[in-house]
């Protein structure tokens, strides 16, 4: 009985959580969602942010990956395309953070395409 109740609860949660399409600020904007705070945008220090609307074109971000021993300041530089969503996340790859092209396949799942390493990750002790 308990197993059945848990199963149907989980199924209900599953079906009610469909993937929403990204919302862009305008026609010439891209969207960046980051799991870790963005502290610098195009060379200018900004307030910590996890979601940014970027003008399409060449952009650079510095994102901080915090650990208990060190903080890693990772610099990404790429040409952002209008109407495109990007995601920065940690995935135990070669560098602490990786930038992906976030793509909504349908309402059930998304894809992370074209992984891009940062130009550098500066390590600073905490």
């Amino acid at each position, binding site marked *: 009985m308990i197993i059945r109740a*848990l*199963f149907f609860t989980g199924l209900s949660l599953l079906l009610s959580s469909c*993937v929403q399409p990204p919302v862009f600020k305008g026609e010439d904007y891209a969207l960046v969602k980051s799991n*870790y705070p963005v502290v610098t945008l195009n060379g200018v220090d900004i307030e910590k942010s996890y979601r940014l609307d970027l003008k399409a074109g060449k952009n650079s971000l510095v994102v901080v990956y*915090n650990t208990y021993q060190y903080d890693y300041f990772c610099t990404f530089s790429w040409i952002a395309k209008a109407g495109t969503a990007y995601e920065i996340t940690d*995935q135990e790859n070669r560098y602490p953070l990786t930038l992906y092209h976030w793509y909504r396949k349908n309402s059930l799942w998304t894809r*992370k395409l074209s992984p891009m390493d940062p130009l550098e*990750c500066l390590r600073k002790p905490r």
Partner: protein
Amino acid sequence: MKPTSLIFFLLTMLPALLFSTGVTAREDNPALEIPGVDETDIRNSALAFVNTTTAPGLEGATLNVDNNERNSDQWRSSLGFSAEITLPNHIYNAYWGLAMVGGSLVDNLRFTGANGQPIHINLRRDIISLRGSLGLSFPLNEHFKLRPVITIATSDMLTKGTATGLLDDNGIPTVITGENRAQILSTTGTIDAIYWYWYDDYRLELSAHYNLAYTDSFSETEPILDTHAWSQTGQLKSRISGPTSLTLSGRPWRWQAYANHTNFITQKNSALGYTALFEIGGGIEWEINIKPLDWFGWQSIGISAGIITSRNVEGFNVGLTAR
């Protein structure tokens, strides 16, 4: 000959066989007496099966134990997912997981009864379990993290058995069948220590895992399975992966090789015929990078195959993987 490792499975079934068929109680029939065995041994064998099937961190497996007293086949498999959730303004992340686990054990036991007659027991256990985990992930640096996790699993176990060679009141060998069911609730505390390192396109991962589990079993049909116990499990895992020249839809395939050791620390060898397993294998995985419902990510899916070995046990693991 004093039955040793077989005694526990026999005793697990005997009470059920007696209760379900109305055979006279053990104390009236010397043929059913087995010296040197107590109810603790009976419980240990049942709970060992639960632990070796549903404990967190165990991969799927098909095992065979074959010695002078026992020939048993056991398999386990699971389908689940897990993910870390980044918590803004915190260094640590949250961790969650869900899994459905299934397993089965078929045990053929041979021993000598109190009157010197041969006795054969054929025992089958089936279990299905739903498991949920919540924890935290503490990254110490870019290569190492510690992860304490609490897991709760609810299981349903069905046991059926047949005993031949037991003597009735007239000393004539007879066949007895029995069945019992138990519901099990397990609470497991786990510590994971995970290290990874990249050299060029090659990745090495080393991890250690420790489980401390409290298992509570409830049974209306078998009082001996209305019980509880603590158990400990330790695992050491190693994995290396590298690039291949293969791609599919622009995403690469990687090869992998692994070696794992699992030690069921508090389990007696007599319960299932083994207390530790060593597995070595390899496979290939596709860097699919999808996120179902945008909740959790599957970085790669693939196929793997491995062989499992230990004293008195051999086995294999072939299946799909998703990380």
